[in-house]
């Protein structure tokens, strides 16, 4: 499989088919792991780094693992390809931009990926469509256990899995639920949601993780605590918190619908109009408008647009995808024109 082939498929998590997918885009779990016999990457020399990569790569490609993985060394990829992997949530932005030997192994439907030599030697990740935390954890747990057969992870009975940053030590488990919360934003309730989540030790981030601002009303909620609780307990707590947010978002959606139906309809249809007819559109504007359209689609104000299509448009209108679809590099200015064309083409067939 080549990076290009990702364009002809959409990734399981983008399908919009999982439970609660009117609000929850995806459930992501990740495990941080380090090899016992190598120093962490913070102090690793270029040659140690390279040794770690080779050592892990062979085992990811040829080991007896529950999923067949394809491995890409990140320095063998172009800038655009690395950007595409970031947009697809298969690697982090930091991993794309870092230097030195590093890579990523990806499973067939993109639901599993393993970054090698990111902040820790291994970062395993599983993404599922909608709210599927147990399913996602089961899959990552199977992969982790299989990897234990060929890799000795740094582990201490007291502190658990040892990580470069103490914020990840213990289970090494970070769960992130990506949600679309346009009604919370429109009803000016988002601050309250954020505050109560912070009080419960959850962090909230934008679409592309750490340090990114919320765009298009997408929010990613993650657990902060990784030590002192079992994996199942961390998941169970998350499974109590998320439905509360869903309940509020749904009630705000219906409140908007009953109190100001015309204003909401107008917002949705204007967004649809611009997306359908614009000749130039920036990534930010497209995301904002797609967010309004997505709300309209799920409230049945606009019919006939498949959920999968709207989810895909968020990703395929990002710079990396756009350039890969066009098979050439595009100046930012040119991108806006191509993006508008792409969206028009996709919405025309609807």
């Amino acid at each position, binding site marked *: 499989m080549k990076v290009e082939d990702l364009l002809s498929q959409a990734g399981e998590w983008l399908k919009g088919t999982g439970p609660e997918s009117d609000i929850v885009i995806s459930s992501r779990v990740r495990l941080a792991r*380090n090899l*016992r*016999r190598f*120093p*962490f990457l*913070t*102090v690793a020399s270029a040659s140690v780094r390279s040794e770690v990569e080779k050592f892990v790569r062979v085992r990811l490609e040829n080991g007896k693992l529950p999923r067949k993985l394809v491995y890409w060394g990140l320095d063998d990829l172009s800038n655009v390809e690395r950007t595409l992997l970031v947009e697809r949530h298969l690697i982090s932005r930091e991993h794309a931009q870092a230097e030195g030997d590093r890579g990523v192994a990806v499973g067939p439907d993109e639901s599993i990926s393993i970054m090698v030599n990111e*902040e820790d030697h291994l970062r395993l990740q599983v993404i599922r469509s909608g709210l599927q935390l147990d399913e996602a954890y089961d899959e990552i*747990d199977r992969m*982790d*256990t299989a990897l*234990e*057969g*060929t*890799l*000795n*992870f*740094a*582990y*201490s*009975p*007291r*502190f*658990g*899995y*040892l*990580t*470069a*940053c*103490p*914020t990840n*030590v*213990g*289970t090494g*488990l970070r769960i992130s639920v990506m949600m679309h919360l346009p009604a919370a934003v429109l009803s000016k309730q988002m601050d309250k949601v*954020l505050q109560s989540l912070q009080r419960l030790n959850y962090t*909230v*981030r*934008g679409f592309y993780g*750490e*340090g*990114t*601002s*919320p765009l298009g009303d997408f929010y990613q909620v993650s657990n*902060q*605590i*990784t*030590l*002192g*609780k*079992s*994996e199942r*307990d961390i998941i169970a707590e998350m499974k109590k918190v998320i439905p509360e947010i869903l309940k509020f978002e749904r009630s705000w959606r219906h409140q908007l619908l009953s109190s100001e139906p015309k204003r909401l309809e107008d917002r949705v249809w204007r967004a649809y109009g611009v997306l359908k007819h614009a000749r130039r559109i920036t990534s930010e504007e497209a995301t904002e408008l797609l967010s309004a359209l997505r709300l309209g689609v799920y409230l049945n104000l606009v019919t006939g647009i498949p959920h999968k299509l709207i989810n895909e448009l968020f990703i395929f209108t990002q710079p990396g995808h756009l350039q890969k679809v066009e098979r050439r590099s595009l100046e930012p200015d040119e991108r806006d024109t191509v993006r508008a064309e792409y969206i028009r083409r996709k919405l025309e067939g609807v």
Partner: protein
Amino acid sequence: MNCEKCHKNHATYHLTAKENGVMKEAHLCEECARQAGVNLKFNFTIGELLGTLMEPAKGGTSKANQVRCPECGISYSEFKTKARLGCANDYEVFRTELLRLLEKIHGSTSHAGKTPQTVDAQVRIENELMRLKRDLESVVKSEDFEKAAQIRDRIRSLETELNKK
């Protein structure tokens, strides 16, 4: 600690910033932090978050800050600036300091999750290695070189076993 600005509420935001090369600190309550234009939601990195949780460096001269890990060579004060440890052994070398930090971050200092299936074998080998290395020292001191050679061979074979994975 009370807020430096209103002197009324509890300071929950401990901010650090570099100004003309000098580290400055501010301790504010949520309300004053908001008024000061601090974005309370998104604009912090894990490093900054850790910075606010860690003990203030006592001029960087305190003894604990200077101890270096024999395996990776970093000191606790270097960890404080980078917010990243250098190797697995650091968790033992900086145990006391880390226990305090982990309590603040996680509200706990003990793992309660998954145990690798291979860990029992691994711990057993590590324990035996530790014992053999002590034995080696004492037999070398007593100049029992035949015994020392035997122990060294055993250490080598155990280390190979441990490093296969």
